[in-house]
């Protein structure tokens, strides 16, 4: 009976995570074609309208009279684009570094892995902030900052997977046939590595959203007047003591999207582990 219940739990991770992630992605897609109002349009006569006060603004307006719903929709673009791109770059660089040190070993490997250890020692946001100084505030800075933060996790995963699977018989056999390194990688290592990479990628998206919103909350990410969820919370700070509703939508949006990708990562992880065992 216990096992049955666990199955329900696993499915629910995948389901809820999938739905939430899908919602965030579709919100982003829709915002390219339609937002109720132009997200940056100021309308000072309509400022600080609480949600429900007038039929015109579903989530109310901010201190410049901008429609919050439109800004939330537009803000999802920076989340999705910055985070997807950043994690993708981090995953690519990390996997290549991990793969190279796993296959070639020796001095290159120890050099790369020392570098990875060093990168890992930095507390996340600190490294990100340092990169912002170098690249500059804005989308590019955030992408570089987040992708560098992601490199160590992917490098370590690929490296350890390659080392672990070396003892597998089919890999030993393939090597004894004199297989080329490239074929070994594509035919034998990739099927082992890929599911784990997908899982890590999804889980990292959650972490990336957290860093992106933190950076833009600190004023180091997407720059005004463009909307991003973290910055909207930062802007809400000046007025939210009188108008608490300002701080609700973007907070919920961030939480739900992080939750979505985290759950999806968990669900995928359980799915793949079940299949392997």
């Amino acid at each position: 009976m216990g096992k049955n219940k666990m199955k329900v739990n696993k499915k629910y991770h995948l389901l809820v995570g999938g739905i939430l992630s899908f919602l965030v992605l579709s919100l982003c897609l829709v915002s390219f074609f339609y937002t109720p109002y132009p997200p940056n349009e100021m309308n000072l006569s309509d400022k600080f309208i609480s949600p429900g006060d007038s039929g015109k603004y579903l989530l109310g307006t901010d201190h410049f009279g901008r429609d919050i719903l439109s800004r939330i929709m537009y803000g999802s673009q920076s989340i999705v684009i910055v985070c997807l791109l950043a994690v993708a770059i981090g995953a690519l660089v990390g996997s290549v570094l991990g793969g190279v040190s796993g296959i070639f070993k020796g001095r290159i490997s120890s050099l790369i892995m020392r570098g990875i250890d060093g990168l890992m020692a930095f507390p996340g946001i600190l490294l990100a902030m340092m990169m912002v100084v170098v690249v500059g505030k804005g989308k590019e800075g955030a992408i570089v900052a987040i992708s560098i933060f992601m490199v160590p996790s992917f490098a370590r995963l690929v490296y350890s997977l390659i080392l672990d699977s070396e003892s597998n018989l089919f890999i030993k056999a393939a090597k004894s046939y004199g297989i080329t390194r490239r074929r070994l990688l594509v035919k034998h290592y990739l099927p082992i590595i890929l599911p784990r990479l997908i899982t890590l990628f999804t889980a990292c998206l959650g972490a990336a959203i957290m860093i992106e919103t933190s950076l833009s909350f600190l004023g180091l990410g997407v720059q005004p007047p463009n909307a991003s969820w973290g910055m909207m919370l930062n802007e809400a700070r000046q007025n939210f003591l009188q108008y608490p509703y300002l701080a609700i939508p973007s907070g919920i949006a961030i939480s739900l999207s992080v939750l979505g990708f985290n759950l999806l990562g968990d669900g995928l992880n359980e799915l793949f582990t079940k299949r392997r065992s």
Partner: protein
Amino acid sequence: MLNYIFKRIIHAAEVLFVVSLITFAVLLWIPGDVAQLILGSDATPEKLEALRISLGLDRAWYLQYWDWLKGLFRLDLGQSYLFGQNVTTLIAQRLPVTLSIAVFSMLIASVTAILLGSLAAIKKNTKTDYFVTGLMQLGSSVPSFWIGMLCIVFFGLKLKIFPITGYVPIEKGFIPYLNSIFLPSFVLAIGEIGMLLRTVRTSMLDSLRQDYMDMAKVKGLPKVTVYLKYALRSAMIAPINVMGIQFAKLVGGTVVIESVFSLPGLGRLILVAVEQRDIMLLQGLVIFITFLVILISLIVDIAVMFLNPRIRVQMEGE
């Protein structure tokens, strides 16, 4: 055993060296001229050149790096151009704030995670378990700055239990001090509980499956003794490791929360250094915090080794 400790220290030193290289290299790339930044845009070329020479910026990068490294060993992190003070002094002034929040939030997170994590493990696959793990999922998804803002409104403004912002040093009384750091620590802890709780639950489940648990139950020992003395004690090794890592990362991770609660800690200093591009200050802060992180994880690693009888015996047997 000594051998292991020695190896671990060497590894830590290596990592620190890599970190110092990365920090120095990254900040060397910064576009723009530091001398220009200090003197402003209306400085004459002669003055700029003179300052560059006095700062040593005209020399090769490895000489600059070597000088900076030598400074590190004398605890001299250079001069902040923004504050006109020694970076070491600036750090020393703000460290207590950051350390206080980090320690308190780690305390709150650990106690909660151990209690709830063990509960979830003991009541595995029941409603309690799902509730606790669900709550944990939610807790680690909510951004700390948002909870911080909500807490300020609710506890600070509506209920008026805690001051909204600011820091009271411990010399001005323990209660005001505790009041000023409780809310930020609590908010920070919410984000930390998730990971820790997961570790406690997994390792508790593991230890509940062991044969000695059945033995203890068969002996008819009271439940509390069984869970506390047998299960929890042996289940604490992995969580302690995680705690160490989390605490270390917390020291550098308070930037956002210090900004929300207007606390004058290291995090605020980092933000100022980043915004004003005070390279010396940023370099000093990054290397100091990362050193702290490495040191703490080193200490925890060695402590765990002494705590874990299995590792200890293994080492002594070698």
